[in-house]
């Protein structure tokens, strides 16, 4: 408990010249790589004025893309939150065979290209895929439809919640749960009243990152979407379609929504890190 709450004083090295150069380089890179594109996005989106910008967002295809993005995230994120908690719980509180295999599997989506993450679903559920004929016989659509988008998004965003929780739960150990059990609590009560409150901020943090990625995912979703306007285009895909049509205001207007999502996520993430650093995993402490 003391280890979790006390923070080690940071060792400071005094190298004035070097520090200055490092800070300058970091700021320049940050400005060039992050702030400049952000500026360009909003600048291009508002190039022809606010009415045009709003018009581009009110267009039926844009509305449908926003809806679809929200729908996919609304399904994928809660599912991944549940999977993530379950996986983190299993890995950090129990000893079992195949634990390291599970740990590797959780990280897999990080290490493979999103295009592959999309392609596997096509190979499984596409018309020529393993279950393609069966799906066709039962009049079910997975690829080029919402289920495919959800599956691809789930696969790509799977690690976020679990990765956030595992170090924290490992550090907290299973003693509090054991204590709750000896005090007469059932397994479910223990989870609800002891485990969940202890991980709530880290869980929120993981969900936040998971959500940002789920809404912004392009590669995997692109493979399974089929780019049917107004039907299977999510916001990032919508941006691409418009951009390829030389509709730069429309493309950047849609992109500005994603950028806005990014900024909101960043702010919330910072607030979480600032207010609850002690309850996030040790590696997240500042």
């Amino acid at each position: 408990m003391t280890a979790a709450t006390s923070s080690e004083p940071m060792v400071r090295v005094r190298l004035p010249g070097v520090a200055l150069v490092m800070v300058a380089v970091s700021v320049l890179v940050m400005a060039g790589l992050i702030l400049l594109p952000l500026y360009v996005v909003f600048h291009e989106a508002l190039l022809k004025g606010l009415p045009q910008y709003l018009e581009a967002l009110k267009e039926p295809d844009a509305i449908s893309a926003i809806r679809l993005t929200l729908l996919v995230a609304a399904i994928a994120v809660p599912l991944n939150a549940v999977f993530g908690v379950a996986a983190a719980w299993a890995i950090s509180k129990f000893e079992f065979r195949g634990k390291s295999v599970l740990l590797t599997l959780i990280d897999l989506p990080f290490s493979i290209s999103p295009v592959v993450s999309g392609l596997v679903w096509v190979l499984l559920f596409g018309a020529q895929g393993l279950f393609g004929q069966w799906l066709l016989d039962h009049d079910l659509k997975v690829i080029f439809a919402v289920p495919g988008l959800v599956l691809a998004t789930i696969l790509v965003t799977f690690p976020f919640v679990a990765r956030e929780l595992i170090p924290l739960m490992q550090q907290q150990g299973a003693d509090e749960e054991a204590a709750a059990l000896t005090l007469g609590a059932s397994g479910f009560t223990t989870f609800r009243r002891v485990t969940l409150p202890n991980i709530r901020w880290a869980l929120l943090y993981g969900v936040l990152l998971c959500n940002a990625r789920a809404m912004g995912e392009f590669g995997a979703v692109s493979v399974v979407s089929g780019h049917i306007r107004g039907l299977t285009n999510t916001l990032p895909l919508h941006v691409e379609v418009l951009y390829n049509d030389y509709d730069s205001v429309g493309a950047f207007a849609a992109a500005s929504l994603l950028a806005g999502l990014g900024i909101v996520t960043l702010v919330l993430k910072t607030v979480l890190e600032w207010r609850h650093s002690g309850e996030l995993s040790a590696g997240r402490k500042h």
Partner: protein
Amino acid sequence: MSLQARDKEFLALLGPSGSGKTTLLRVLAGLEEPDSGEVRFDGEDFLALPVRKRKVGMVFQHYALFRHMTVAQNIAFGLTVRPARERPGKAEIKRRVTELLDLVQLQGLEKRFPSQLSGGQRQRVALARALAIEPRMLLLDEPFGALDAQVRRELRRWLRELHDRAGVTTVFVTHDQEEALDLADRVAILKDGELVQLGAPNAVYEHPATPFVFDFLGQACQLPGIVQGRTLTVADWGTAAPEGAPQGAVQVFFRPDEIAFAPADGAGLAAEVLAVAQRGPDVRIDCRIEGVLMELIGHGPTLPAGVAPGLSVRVKPLRPQVYAT
């Protein structure tokens, strides 16, 4: 191994790390399953009961307080998780919590969080939380392990008094022999998962069953000897063999402070004094006996004048123990 705790007894499980004492405690609590064997409580098969039905109060080595709950919520936890039918009312829970806070002398701290308490206070909260469920048995895992020496000694007395007042069978695990001997009604000494000896602190200390126990319970000096009939001979010193000593070649153990000094022509083991140093209340005497370097301990005021570096004296172990080799 087989071990039985008596009703309302304060039983210590003592052993070096890796001796299986914590595992045994966790088996009693139901947090671990034994590969074989049985656990009975009042004749009831304990292994058939899940952890939460056993009603054992456990205090963990690092207390395992619920970090997001206040002291009061921690103590009340065991009462609030009861099924609705058996759950006491809000006012009753509050009354119990106040009562327990009084018992562990933490009045006024009910709104604090565990992170705002000292180690000793956390430990007492953990104890109050365990007592709240009116446990049939109290299990303490290294209850003083994470505290500093001063707090440790204070809490030890206090815990013993608490046990006597609460009147609940208590089993506690420790690797500190002083703690076990000081606190417990009976001490069970474990080694490599085996019960080596079980008995009252004094009985165990004065008659260790094996060289391991002798060594573990305090400092030990060791010499070879021979028992013939009722006589124990070590080098040129002969004395009465202890009750029930094995015949033939033996290992002789004695405590470095359970000795008497005699002049060089008296009775005892011939010793050559190498150094004498005052160490707080004790005097440490480095000497060579039968070619073996030994550190003996004398108590200041009773040290004979003849003991000084370079002198030869006789050392007479007052209570030698012998073990077959």
